[in-house]
Structures are given as structure tokens and as C-alpha cells.
């Protein structure tokens, strides 16, 4: 059941982004302009800086240098408005194991000031196939179910900029199908999406742009409006 887009699509501008952890530099002078509505496949080996980039884009992490701007229409968004419009699926599930599925979603719905909570939460749980397990503790869920719930949590506030860090990892077949359908719907709605991955999977067929990171820098970029398929073809098949 599609939920309406809460705001127009958002573009992301990164200028000279650096991130250092002590003497280890994860991102070096990274400059990227991601247009609203683009579906970006972020590629690169482990350690190339994909996770760091996504964490900075979601404002969880401060860059050591450089600037990040969120653009809507022709205006720059304030950091708080941007936070309201960004959704992140991270390596961890970001869920409370001791809460039920419904309690987790209700908490985050409250934090995002959403209304009509019971209906919204029920709808979200049904959409990801966890409607029957609404009152079960997350602690009892399988990995695939947790990942599905994590996705549902990230989608709850209808983000206009959706960031996913290796979302297919740990998903079961039902989850993968739902992920594919959700990403397809988001793309259709004009949501800006950035998916990071280091191996091939079906959701990448939706990509309108591919960016390869290596050593903290942009290595190759198919560009806005370009063809991402040659770059995507270089990815190895997922085992």
C-alpha cells in the first residue's frame, strides 16, 4: 500500500568532504552532487568509505572537513528539516530488542511527530509482512524479520532521501521481494535513493546512476543522466 510522499524530493550536495579517524582517512576531499529523484548505486570494496559517506549524509556523523547541503526545490534545507526528510537503513537494526515490533514503530513514529499512530504502525507492519507478529518482542525475531522491521522503521516517516547501507544483507526471500517492491515504488514516487553495496543484487536494476568509491575518493561516476549499467556490470555476482 503506497504511502504518499511527504515532501518534494531532495538533492544532496557534498563539497570537499573529509573524514579522519585519528590518522586513518576514510574520506578524502569528496565532492558529489546528487540530484533530486536520482537512484544511486554506491559501489566499492569494504573499507572504501561507503558507510562513512552514508553516515555523514544522514547527519549522524560530522565530517572532519567540507560541507554538506540538502537542497529542496532551489532552497537549502536547515539541518533539522533535513533530518525529518532522511531515512537510513544501517548495518545495525536500530531496534530495541526488548520492545515489541509495534512498540518500536510507535516510538519512532512519536519521535517523528507522526499522527494517527495505531493505524500507521499497523499499516507499516502489514506492508513488511510482520502484521501477525506485532506484539512479539524483537528479541524473538529471525535476522530476516529484524531487517524487514528495520526497513519498515526507516520508511515510517516517508523520507524524501532514503539511504541504505547494504540493505540486502540478512534479508530472507520474502524480505528481498519486499525490498525490491519498496525501492521500485520509491523510485516511482521520485524519492532520492542511495543504496550502497559491494555485490550484485536485483535492486540495482533500478539505479539511474552508479558511483564507485575507492580509498575514500570517487573513483568512477556514471553521472547524473548517464548510463550506470557499464559500471554496474563490473560488479561480481553475489555468491
Amino acid at each position, binding site marked *: 500500500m503506497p504511502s504518499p510522499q511527504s515532501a518534494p524530493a531532495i538533492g544532496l550536495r557534498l563539497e570537499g568532504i573529509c573524514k579522519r579517524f585519528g590518522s586513518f582517512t576514510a574520506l578524502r576531499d569528496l565532492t558529489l552532487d546528487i540530484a533530486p529523484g536520482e537512484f544511486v548505486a554506491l559501489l566499492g570494496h569494504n573499507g572504501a568509505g561507503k558507510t562513512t559517506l552514508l553516515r555523514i549524509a544522514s547527519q549522524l556523523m560530522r565530517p572532519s572537513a567540507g560541507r554538506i547541503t540538502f537542497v529542496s526545490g532551489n532552497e537549502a534545507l536547515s539541518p533539522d528539516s533535513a*533530518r*525529518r526528510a532522511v531515512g537510513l537503513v544501517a548495518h545495525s537494526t*536500530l*531496534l530495541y530488542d526488548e520492545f515489541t515490533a509495534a512498540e518500536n514503530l510507535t*516510538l519512532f513514529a512519536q*519521535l517523528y511527530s507522526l499522527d494517527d499512530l495505531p493505524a500507521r504502525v499497523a499499516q507499516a507492519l502489514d506492508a513488511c509482512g510482520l502484521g501477525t507478529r506485532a506484539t512479539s518482542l524483537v528479541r524473538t525475531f529471525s535476522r530476516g524479520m529484524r531487517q524487514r522491521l528495520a526497513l519498515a522503521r526507516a520508511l515510517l516517516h516517508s523520507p524524501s532521501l532514503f539511504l541504505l547501507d547494504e540493505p540486502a544483507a540478512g534479508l530472507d526471500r520474502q524480505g528481498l521481494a519486499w525490498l525490491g517492491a519498496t525501492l521500485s515504488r520509491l523510485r516511482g514516487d521520485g524519492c532520492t535513493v542511495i543504496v550502497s553495496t559491494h555485490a550484485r543484487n536485483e535492486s540495482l536494476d533500478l539505479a539511474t546512476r552508479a558511483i564507485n568509491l575507492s580509498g575514500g575518493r570517487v573513483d568512477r561516476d556514471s553521472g547524473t543522466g548517464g548510463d550506470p549499467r557499464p559500471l554496474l556490470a563490473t560488479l561480481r555476482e553475489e555468491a
Partner: protein
Amino acid sequence: MNTPRAALIILGKELRLELRTRELSNATIVFALIVVVLFSFAFDPTAAEARRYGPGLLWIAFLFAGSLMLNPSFAREQANDTLDALRLAPIPSFGLLLGKMLANLLFLSAAECVLVPVFSILYNVSLSGIVGRLIIVLFLGNAGLVITGTVFSAVSAHARMRELLLPLLLLPILAPLLIAAVEATAALFADPPALDTTWLSVLGGFDVVFLTASWILCDYLLEE
């Protein structure tokens, strides 16, 4: 979203989590009771001595139990990186911090609701006539304890040996609070009981200074 509303949501979450798991309250109450009982082995107090040393004993018990209880405040947000989820949400950082402070205040106060009557019974110290004023002193003292303790829980959550580090950071800072709280409590245990406004001002001052400092510095506390 404004800070009070965010704080209430976080407070609600902390309470719900605690009611579900009861991790903190059980451990805190038991530990504080152990301290109270052990003190009686260290010196065998008469009723008069108990009135004299009682305040010190009580507050040391609260301090130790409190520093144990405050550690999980941020440490348990590291499972599944739930702190990231809270930081992602469009809520003010101080709302998040304040919610946790309020929750810790409630937990500590709940533990003291058990502890103070038990102390009163074990050491034959009568609390009649001073309960109301004692609650004021306890509130101001607890506030200072949870304000600094919650902040240092956030600080030590990222460090190694954090269970040991938190008391190490917290107890020196709380020295003025300990003095003021003990003296104010002692004034209530004295004959006739009196509410010592000087010491209450020190407690209040401590609370205001560190709450303000927390408010100013909260973004630095939570950033990555």
C-alpha cells in the same frame, strides 16, 4: 519538535523499557541495601550515633548505587546502535539527554523510597515529621547526581572499562553535592529538625550550574 515533548517521549521509552526488564531497579535496590547493612558491621551504632552518621551513610549508599545504575543509561543504547536511531530523529539533543535524566531521577527516587524506610527501621531513626522536608533534600541531591551522572554515562559509553570509569569521573565531581546533601539531611535528623536553606542553596546551585552546562554542551556529547 520542542525539548520538553522530546524529553517526555524518551522518558516514556526509558520507563517502558525498565518496567519490561527491571534490570536497573533490582540491582540498584539490592546493592544499596548491601551497603546499608555492611555499614552496621563497620561500626555498631547506637541510636544517637545513627542519627549522626546516618546521613553520611545514606548518601554514600545513594552515590554508589547511583553510579552503578547510571552506567547503562547510555551503555545499553549501544546494542543494535539504538542511540543512532534516536540521534537520527528530528529531536533536539537536549531533549534526548533530559529524557534520560528524568528517567534516571525516577529510578533513583524509587530505589530511595525503599531504602530510606529500611534504613529508618534498621537503625531506629525516626522519620516522623520530617518526611516532606526530607523529600525536598533528596530531590535536590538526586537531581545533581543524575544530571552529572547521565552526562558522564554518555562520556564513558565510548571508553574502555566504562563500568570503572563512570564512578571515577563522577565521584570527585559530586564532592560538593555530597557535603551539602549530608549536611542538609543531618540538619533534618537533628533535634529540633530544621531545613537548612544554606545547604539547599548549594544543592540548588550545583543543579543549576551543571544542568546549564549540560544544555550548552549536549551536542558535543552526542556527536560522532
